[in-house]
């Protein structure tokens, strides 16, 4: 039902834009992949289900000059608001087709559940999914295979849209801080350092996290790769990897909308999004700021107050 209405809206939108971005089936039944609709026929391939995990708004800044339509979930819509705050896109050029989202799946978690067997068929019910593999079929509750971001999700309905497919939903699962952060904060400094060193040591510096990040807009002039200034070298040491992740985290301070793409695309399963989530918690505490919620806001690192209420001077 949603898909039919989505197709209809997309075809409608296509009349005055060059391109609409949506989702289609990927290489197997467990993967969706982005679909770029330029012709009417392409819209036939559109799908909508919890496999639609990608944040399609990533493409918007590079398409700033053309008129495009994009299908967004609640979390993706926050990216658009952040783009608007930073002047990275023109609102008039983007047609936003919002879909209220009940939570998506983490392909990684599903694969673990089915023990990495090749997938033959996947079907969805209201709150569960059934995966058929060569070794039989397995039914999973979608809630149990949510990615981290769905657990702390506060905005299931898009915050900004031109068309809304379906009824707005709202829920708050009451989880403010993700489990990993809580666990880490209960540990000693040495344990935390050991944790991050162990995680970052796996990094192969493919920069997939940076490339998938909608707000890493420097792309080809990223300081992780420039020779002048030479921030990090090509040496394969833990410190270089650590430094790269610091660059990514600090450049997203007060900008990260927690879409979780960095962690999703990481081939080494490094929880790169945790650092940014932690900084966001501080941003909320210090400046009462939540990224990607109000297009009129200014990112906290782009502005200042003469008297900072929440910043106290530190003594030695």
């Amino acid at each position: 039902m949603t898909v039919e209405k989505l197709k209809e809206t997309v075809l409608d939108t296509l009349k005055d834009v060059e391109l609409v971005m949506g989702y289609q089936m990927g290489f197997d039944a467990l993967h969706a992949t982005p679909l770029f609709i330029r012709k009417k026929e392409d819209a036939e391939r559109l799908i909508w289900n919890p496999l639609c995990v990608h944040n399609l708004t990533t493409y918007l800044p590079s398409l700033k000059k053309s008129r495009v339509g994009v299908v967004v979930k609640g979390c993706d819509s926050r990216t658009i608001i952040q783009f608007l705050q930073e002047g990275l896109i023109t609102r008039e050029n983007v047609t936003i087709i919002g879909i209220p989202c009940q939570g998506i799946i983490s392909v990684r978690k599903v694969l673990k559940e089915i023990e990495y067997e090749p997938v033959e068929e996947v079907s969805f019910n209201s709150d569960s999914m059934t995966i058929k593999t060569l070794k039989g079929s397995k039914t999973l509750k979608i809630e149990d295979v949510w990615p981290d971001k769905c657990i702390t999700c506060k905005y299931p309905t898009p915050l900004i849209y031109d068309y809304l497919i379906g009824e707005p939903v709202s829920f708050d699962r009451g989880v403010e801080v993700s489990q990993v952060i809580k666990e880490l904060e209960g540990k000693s400094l040495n344990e935390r350092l050991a944790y991050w060193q162990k995680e970052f040591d796996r990094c192969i510096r493919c920069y997939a996290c940076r490339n998938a990040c909608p707000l890493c807009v420097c792309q080809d002039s990223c300081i992780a790769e420039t020779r002048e200034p030479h921030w990090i070298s090509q040496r394969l040491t833990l410190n270089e990897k650590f430094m790269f992740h610091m660059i990514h985290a600090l450049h997203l301070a007060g900008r990260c909308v927690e879409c979780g793409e960095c962690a999703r695309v990481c081939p080494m399963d490094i929880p790169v999004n945790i650092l940014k989530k932690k900084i966001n918690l501080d941003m909320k505490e210090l400046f009462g700021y939540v990224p990607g919620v109000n297009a009129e806001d200014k990112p906290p690192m782009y502005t200042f107050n003469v008297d900072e209420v929440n910043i106290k001077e530190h003594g030695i």
Partner: protein
Amino acid sequence: MSDIAPKELKIVGFLCNWCSYGGADTAGVSRFKQPPDLRIIRVPCSGRIDPLFVVKALLNGADGVLVSGCHPRDCHYSDGNFYARRRLEMLKRLLPFLGIDDKRFHYTWISASEGQRWQQTVTAFVKRIHELGPLNLKEEKQS
């Protein structure tokens, strides 16, 4: 060097050209005694300091980092230190999450006339780093 003197640690200081660097100079001209562990890097303004400067220093062998600029409202460029204050506070809160003691990083405001205060700050900070000991983040083999 006498045997009693503790081993010198590496502490990097980022000082703004207009206030704190002047303050350090005042302390020098006044011949106030200062610990020798601090290596000062002069920057045009505390707003020039990217939090990554601090991270890079710590990852590359510094045991502590001290940042100092003009007092808020006294910035030579009128608002550089206001931006710096937000960034540095953000970093100060992030460091312990990474497992680096935030006591190793200190930011403060010292004007060009406050030679005495500079001397006190440096002495106290260096003392604190000595109590914490070396950080040793640089020691690592190529994998």
